[in-house]
C-alpha cells in the first residue's frame, strides 16, 4: 500500500501567501504558516569547501557511484519529540564527512545525501537531494542490448551525467532582494519569481528556522531562469485598487483592505500554479519518525513549466519542508527523451512511434540533447544524413 504522506499533487496545506515584495525584476512572495509545530526544526551547517564529493553507494573512500558538486551548506533536521528548542543549534559542529586536500583545493567527502546522525537527527544536502534524483532518472541506460547503442552506454549507462545550475550569487539582484526583504512574523517560506516566472519555492517548518536560513537562499542553486530576462529592469507593479462604491464607513474600508490582501494571495497562488496543484511523481527518501522525506518532479512535459524538488510531509499531510528548482527547457527535454526511451524499453523505433516522429529524427534529437554518446557513431551519422535529405 502506498504511503498517504507521499505527495501525489503538491498542495500548500496549512500555508498561506502574503503580498509580494519586489526588487528589480525579482518578486518575493512570503509564505506564512499559522499552526507551527515544535517537534521539527531545521538548521544550517556550513561547509565552505571548494568541491564536495558525495558517496551514493559503498564506503566513503571506496569505489562506487559519486555525486560531485559545490555544496556550501547542508541542513540538519531535528525531530526530537521533546521541546526542540533545547537542542537547537547545539550540535552544529559535529564532524561531517572527511576533508581532503587536493592541490590548492579542499575537497569534502560526504557519506550519502541523507544521513542519520543521531536518534532524532538527520543531515541532508538541500536540493542536491532532488537534483541527484533527477540525474539518476534512468541512469542505468538501456536494459536490452539493442544494436544501436554504444558499448559504453550498455556497460556504464548514462555515467557520467551532468546538469548545470546557477548559484544565487550569480545574480547580483538576488542579494539586494534578500537584504531588503521584510520578513513577516509568521513567515516560514518564500516563493521566488523572476520576471513573474516561478523560479523556486522554499518552505521550512518553523519561522525562526526561516529567519536563520533566509540569507542561505543566496548560496543555493537555481535554474537557468535566474539569469534570464536580464533586460527587464522591473517586475511590473500590480496595482490593485479598492472599490469606492462599496465603501460607506470605516469598517467597509477595513473590509476592503482585507479583501485586497486576499486578492494578492489568490493572485500569487495563481502565479505559482505551475508548481502547486499539478500532478507530481514522488519517491520516498527517508522516514524520519512521523515525517516523510521525499523527492519529486512534475510531469516533465516540454511544453509545461517543470520543477523538481524535495519535501518533508508531516503525519497529517501538512507540508513541513519544501525546496524546488525550476528546470530549464533543455533540462526538461533531456528528461523527457530519457523517459520516452525508457517507457519503450529503449527500442528506438517504438519510442519514435510513440513520439510521432521518425527514428532518424529521434536520434538527432538525442544527440542535440547531449546524449549522442549513448548511440554508436555510424548509427548517428546515418540518422543525420537521413534527416538532412528529408529537408
Amino acid at each position, binding site marked *: 500500500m502506498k504511503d498517504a504522506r507521499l505527495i501525489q499533487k503538491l498542495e500548500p496545506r496549512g500555508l498561506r501567501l*502574503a503580498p509580494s*515584495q519586489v526588487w528589480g525584476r525579482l518578486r518575493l512572495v512570503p509564505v506564512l504558516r499559522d499552526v507551527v509545530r515544535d517537534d521539527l526544526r531545521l538548521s544550517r551547517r556550513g561547509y565552505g569547501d571548494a568541491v564536495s564529493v558525495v558517496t551514493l553507494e559503498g564506503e566513503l573512500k571506496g569505489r562506487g557511484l559519486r555525486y560531485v558538486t559545490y555544496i556550501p551548506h547542508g541542513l540538519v533536521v531535528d525531530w526530537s519529540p521533546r521541546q526542540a528548542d533545547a537542542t537547537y543549534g547545539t550540535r552544529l559542529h559535529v564532524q561531517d564527512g572527511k576533508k581532503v586536500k587536493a592541490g590548492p583545493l579542499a575537497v569534502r567527502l560526504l557519506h550519502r545525501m541523507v544521513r542519520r546522525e543521531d536518534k532524532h537527527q538527520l543531515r541532508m544536502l538541500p536540493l542536491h537531494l532532488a537534483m541527484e534524483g533527477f540525474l539518476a532518472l534512468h541512469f542505468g541506460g538501456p536494459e536490452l542490448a539493442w544494436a544501436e547503442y554504444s558499448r559504453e552506454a550498455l556497460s556504464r549507462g548514462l555515467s557520467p551525467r551532468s546538469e548545470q545550475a546557477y548559484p544565487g550569487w550569480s545574480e547580483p539582484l538576488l542579494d539586494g532582494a534578500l537584504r531588503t526583504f*521584510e520578513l513577516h512574523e509568521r513567515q516560514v517560506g518564500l516563493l521566488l519569481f523572476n520576471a513573474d516566472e516561478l523560479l523556486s519555492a522554499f518552505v521550512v517548518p518553523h519561522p525562526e528556522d526561516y529567519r536563520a536560513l533566509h540569507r542561505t537562499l543566496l548560496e543555493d542553486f537555481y535554474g537557468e531562469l535566474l539569469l534570464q530576462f536580464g533586460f527587464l529592469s522591473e517586475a511590473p507593479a500590480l496595482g490593485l485598487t*479598492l472599490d*469606492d462604491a462599496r*465603501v460607506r464607513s470605516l469598517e467597509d474600508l477595513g473590509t476592503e*483592505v482585507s479583501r485586497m*490582501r486576499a486578492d*494578492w494571495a489568490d493572485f500569487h497562488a495563481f502565479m505559482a500554479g505551475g508548481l502547486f496543484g499539478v500532478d507530481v511523481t514522488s519517491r520516498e527518501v527517508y522516514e524520519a519518525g512521523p515525517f516523510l522525506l521525499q523527492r519529486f518532479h512534475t510531469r516533465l512535459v516540454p511544453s509545461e513549466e517543470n520543477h523538481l524538488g524535495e519535501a518533508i510531509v508531516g503525519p497529517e499531510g501538512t507540508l513541513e519542508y519544501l525546496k524546488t528548482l525550476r528546470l530549464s527547457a533543455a533540462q526538461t527535454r533531456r528528461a523527457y527523451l530519457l523517459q520516452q526511451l525508457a517507457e519503450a524499453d529503449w527500442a528506438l523505433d517504438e519510442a519514435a512511434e510513440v513520439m510521432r516522429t521518425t527514428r532518424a529524427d529521434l536520434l538527432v534529437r538525442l544527440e542535440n540533447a547531449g546524449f549522442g554518446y549513448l548511440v554508436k557513431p555510424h548509427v548517428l551519422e546515418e540518422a543525420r544524413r537521413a534527416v538532412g535529405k528529408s529537408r
Partner: protein
Amino acid sequence: MSSPREVRIEQVAREDLVMFVNACFSCTGQREFYGDARGQTVSIEFLHQYILGNYRRLYRRTLAAGINHFNQAQIVLNLLAAGSPSDAAERGEEGALIAAALRGLPTQRAFRVLESLRARRINNRRARAVARDYVAGRGNLPFDAVKYRSKLRATVAHGHLKLPGELGAFLFHGWKKRGFTEPLLESFRKAHFSQEALYALPFTVAEGLAARHGVARDVFLRRIEPRLTQAERLRLQESAAREGGVEPPVDLERAPLTKLALYVLSLDLETRRARRVELHTALERSAARVLARAPSSLGRVAVVLDNSYSASGSLQKRRRPLAVALAAHYLLEGAAREFRAFWTSPVEAPLLATARGQSDLATPLLEALSWGAELVVIVSDGYDNDPPGAVAELTRVFRAKLDPGRRTALVHVNPVFDAEEYAPRSFGLAVPTVGVRDAEDLPTVLGFARFAEGTASLGELEQYLAARVTPWLERDARLRTRGESQAPTSPAEEVES
C-alpha cells in the same frame, strides 16, 4: 487673468521648489535602506544645480527654511561657486544668508565647507570675504587651530587670510619649531612628547596622539573625560563600556531629541527595559525642550509609526528612520491635547521598539482613523508592502467617500530620500509628503506640509520663504552679539552635530 501657459509655468515652479525643499529636509547623500550612497549623491547634486540655475532667489532663501545641515552646506558652496549676483540688494541678501548659514552650522561642517572651496577651486572675492569673516568671527581660534587644524590651514592658505598672534606660525611654520605662549598650542606641541599634556587637548586630537604614545584606552578615557563634548559622551557610551569598563557620565536630558532616540535604540532590549524610567523621562524632557523653543499645540493627534525592518536604515544611517519615529512619538505626545500612537507591529512600550517585520501601514492607519483623530501623522519611509499600495488607496477612498470635507488632516513625514524620484517617497496624492531628518524639525516640517499638498500657490510659497528669512537673520544677529560677549572657552561648550 493669466494664460494657461503662465498657470502651467507657475505650477511647474511650485512643484520644483516643493520637491527641492522636501529633498533638503531629508537627504544627506548617505546610503539608505533601499538606495545606495552614489545614487543619493547624484540625485541631490542634480537637484541643487537645477534649482540654482532656474530659481536662484528661492534657492538661497531655502537656507532659512529649516533644512538640514548637509543641504545648507551644499547651498552655501553652490552659491559661492556661482559668483555673486549683480543686483546690489540681492547681493546683500545672499551675503547675509551665506554668512548666517555658515555661522549656524556645526563648526566641523562649516570648516568643511570652507575646505571644500579649495577642492572645488572656488576663489572669488566673495568666497574669500566669507571665509575671512567666518574665521574672524570665531570666538576661540587657537582651539579651532588645534581641533580643526587641517581645515583651518586649508581655509587660511586658500583665502590668503591673516591670522593673529602665533597661529600663523603654528599652522604654517610647523608646530615643532618653537614653543608657544598660547597654552593650548603649547599643549599640542608638548603632547607629541609627553603623555601628561594630552589631557589638555580636545578629545578627537588627543585620541590619535594617545594611540601613538600607547596609552591604554581605559586610562585615556578616564582622564580625558572632562574634555568630552556632549555629543562625544553620548557617542562613547557603548564603546567605552566595552573597552574601558566605565562610560563617561552623560546628561541625557541635555541631548538633542533625535540623538537621544538614536542612543536609546542602540541599547539592547534588556538594558532598555532596566533603564526604562530614566530613558523615558530623558526623552520626555528633551521633547519638552524642543517644544519650549518652537511651541505648537495640536488637538487630537494620532501617529502611525513604521517600525518595519526597513526602519533599520543603513550602515551609514543606523536606525535613523526608527529613531525619527520614536522621537516624533515623544514630540507629538508633548504637543497634543490627546494623543495615540499606532505602530506597524505593535510594541510593548515605544522605548522598546525594534525594526522588524513587514510594513503593514494600512492596519494602524485604519485604527488611527477610527479613533477619530483630527490630525494623523504617518512617519514612514514610504514603502508599504502588506498589501503594497494599500495606504495610497485607503487614503484616496477615505478622502473621496468618507471625508470630503477634510475634517481629518493627514500628513506623511518621511525621513528617507528616494534618489530616483528626487523626493521622499510618497503615498499617492491624497496625503502630502514632507521630508525630515531630525524630529526636532517636525513643527517646521508640518508647517510646510500645505505646500506639499499642492493647494497653496507659488506666491504663497515665496512669501513663506521670504517670511522666514528675516527672523532667521535676526536670530543669527542675536546669537552673534551674545557670542561676542561670552566667547566659548572650554571645549565642552562646543556644540557638535
